[in-house]
């Protein structure tokens, strides 16, 4: 759940609790920042050329049929141009689709890089902390070794004392 609003009890301010909410909010944002590309496809009305042929249309076609060779002759250049345009549009549409796909891939890659950057930053911080921790532990080990050595010597001395 993403806490959009930080809830604060002003009478009993608890910094740890506020920080937990801030952390949860930033973590949720980091998770949801992945590209949510909405493909809002434009609702293109489909044209059904065979539908709606009414009686009148059929009659009109019948009357015009003797002239159809002439009409075709006149319309042919326009038709050719139209076909070329449709072809071009189709080509452009396909290109746009390809580019859209590519853009989504790049967005994902960018997000992934951001996460990697974040991860490496955190790792550097953690490594620094671990280095200090390691030094501390090394030191503790040395102290224990010294104490152990000293106890050994003491034990020997006591043994000698007892065996005298």
């Amino acid at each position: 759940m993403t806490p959009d609003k930080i809830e604060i009890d002003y009478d009993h301010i608890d910094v740890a609790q506020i920080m937990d909410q801030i952390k949860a909010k930033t973590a949720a944002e980091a998770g949801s920042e992945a590209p949510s590309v909405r493909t809002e496809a434009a609702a293109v009305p489909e044209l059904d050329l065979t539908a709606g042929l009414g009686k009148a249309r059929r009659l009109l076609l019948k009357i015009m049929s003797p002239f159809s060779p002439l009409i075709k002759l006149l319309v042919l250049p326009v038709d050719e141009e139209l076909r070329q345009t449709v072809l071009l549009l189709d080509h452009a549409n396909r290109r746009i689709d390809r580019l859209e796909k590519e853009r989504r891939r790049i967005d994902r890659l960018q997000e992934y890089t951001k996460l990697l950057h974040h991860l490496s930053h955190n790792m550097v911080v953690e490594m620094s902390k671990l280095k200090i921790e390691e030094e501390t532990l090394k030191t503790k080990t040395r102290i224990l070794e010294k104490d152990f050595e000293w106890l050994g010597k003491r034990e020997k001395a006591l043994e000698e004392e007892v065996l005298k």
Partner: protein
Amino acid sequence: MKLALVVQRYGLEINGGAELHCRWVAEHLKQYAEVEVLTTKAADYITWRNSYTQDEEEVNGIRVRRFPVARVRDPKRFGRLQEWLLHHEHRESDELRWLDEEGPRAPALIQYIRDRKTAYDYFLFFSYRYYHSYWGVKTLPRQSVLVPTAERDPVIGFRIFQDLFRAPRAIVYNSVEERKMINDVSGNQDVLGDIVGVGTELPGRTSGEDFRRRRNVSGPYILYLGRIDENKGCHKLFDYFLRFKRETGSEVKLVLAGTTVIQIPSHPHILYFGFLGDEEKFNALDGAELLVMPSFYESLSMVTLEAWALGKPVLANALCDVLKGQCRRSNGGLYYETYPEFREALALLLSSSRLRRALGENGRRYFEANYSWDVIEKKYLTLLGELEKERSG
């Protein structure tokens, strides 16, 4: 009771860190005991070059004895040696060489302590990592009280310091985190100690308006006080602040005060005013929305306490465990580890004056309960009283 406070530098001109801490403690303890300060003639902490000429002087009613630094520090050579020691197996003698290189090497000061041990009841050594503390505590362990002012710095793991932390009669810590770190490093839980810290000298009256008028600052601003340095996290602060401005379009300004050793980004909303005197510093704090503390290493952070003393909230770097711990214990400030946390915390603080007031009030209560001079003086006196009891018993 006669006390000697031993510190690497001392003077009214020295305005920060363990030196100021020492001066304030000396000035507050003088009403309960005869107090003297033993220090060097250095004023510059990079080279420790002798600057003060007099051997003895009075500073705010405290007798100060100054001893010459026998050899100035070569920062490059020292840096190389430290780097090598931190990354290679080495012997204790190498660490002692490091201590010599670090300085301030003042053998006359140590000789004085040795010769005059009966003239003082206790020697309070400030800053564990310098020559005077190490050799001073080693010279008179049974009369020594160490005030380490230790940060989470890798050199604390050096072998020479394990013995140092186990040697004195008592240790005065600055914070819970510092005590834990030193206990972990040296296993010195048996050494008498208390978490004391230091108070601050508050002016009778503060006026943010005076500061705004004098420096021509308008609109809300957040304040950074202290040395402007990479080690203090200032690079990150600039980066985060500029990103915050870009992303939120906020009108807030960043006001910086202190000496600088790095380039400050040129931006109309980043205002740098150099070093401020005490009066103006408190006025600047009074006018600020909050104090920002981006430092990675702090032993106590006196400016944080000063902000709380004035009832101002703090936004601190959580990667510094002392600052984070203080914020959580006091409920007087928020903290951040990453940029998104910085953005959210700052936006939240700037958007809610009620939250700022509540955090500031918590901070002020925390300061009064733990860091007012009455409390600090009482803690010192209790600790010294216990030592006296041990000695007479």
